[in-house]
């Protein structure tokens, strides 16, 4: 007997809109500061140009920030009680979210001024029996391409509800 009902299966057939996200220097600078990066190419356009880039360069996992903002800037009243975006929460009784596995293939670097197109897909919804009850797994895939159609990153991400 599972916790994934017919209603949840239908929820999993959803399609998400494609989003465009213009990357500005300040987003990159804030993220670089938040993770303790100090290299000048993340903060200073002249230093980035001297290193052969068009403008300020984002640290490698910056596409995560792009997709969080591309899909997550919503009215706070629409969020789940735990603060997560309700669009991503399946209709199942187990609602405490944990991050599962992340797998990222990196393409070209993200540069300030890039316009990145993000495609979001729900790949799979399934359940396993955990030590303290059922666990529900949601597999998502995000594909990021820049204005030149170059692949920036492809991220597979599993969220677990218990």
């Amino acid at each position, binding site marked *: 007997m599972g916790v994934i009902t017919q209603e949840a299966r239908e929820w999993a057939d959803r399609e998400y809109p494609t989003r465009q996200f213009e990357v500005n220097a300040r*987003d990159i600078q*804030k*993220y670089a*500061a*938040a*993770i*303790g*990066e100090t290299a000048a190419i993340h903060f200073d356009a002249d230093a980035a140009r001297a290193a052969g880039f068009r403008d300020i360069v984002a*640290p*490698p*996992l910056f596409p*995560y*920030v792009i997709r*969080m*903002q591309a899909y*997550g*800037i919503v009215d*706070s009243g629409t*969020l789940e*009680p*735990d*603060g*997560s*975006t309700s669009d991503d929460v399946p209709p199942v009784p187990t609602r*405490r*979210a*944990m*991050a*599962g*596995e*992340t*797998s*990222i*293939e*990196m393409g070209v670097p993200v540069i300030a001024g890039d316009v990145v197109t993000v495609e979001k897909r729900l790949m799979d919804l399934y359940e396993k029996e955990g030590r303290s009850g059922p666990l529900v797994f949601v597999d998502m895939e995000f594909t990021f391409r820049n204005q030149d159609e170059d692949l920036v990153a492809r991220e597979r991400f599993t969220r677990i509800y218990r």
Partner: protein
Amino acid sequence: MSAVGDFAVGTEVSTESRTPTAVDLFMFSAAAWLLHRIHYDLPFTTEHDGHPALLIHGPLQGMYLVQSAQRWVGPGATLKSVRYRHHAPAYLGDTLVCGGSVTNVDEAEGTVELELWVKRDDEATTTGAAVFSLPAEGS
């Protein structure tokens, strides 16, 4: 600059320790627009989710894993792919140590693969792997 031939399977990645503060956790939530309350709302985290303290974000630990690996392989190496998973919560106040070892060197492809971990004391909170590409010859 390092080259692929400079790496050997089994070599250990230099360890790095990180002890994020409440300000570091807030900066990461804000910069990433990560709104999950277990990273900034202590009463919610303890009373609703039963944790003893605020949690260090999974993606922040993923970033620590990548940063320590990148510093060890050198600035001339380019990250091609990374994967990681979380095994246990990491809490505000924990000191996390990042390390790992070389698991594959492919001279034809010009890539080095590392197995990586983030540990609190001897317990892995996050484990993963990364592939970097490097120049064939040092320059």
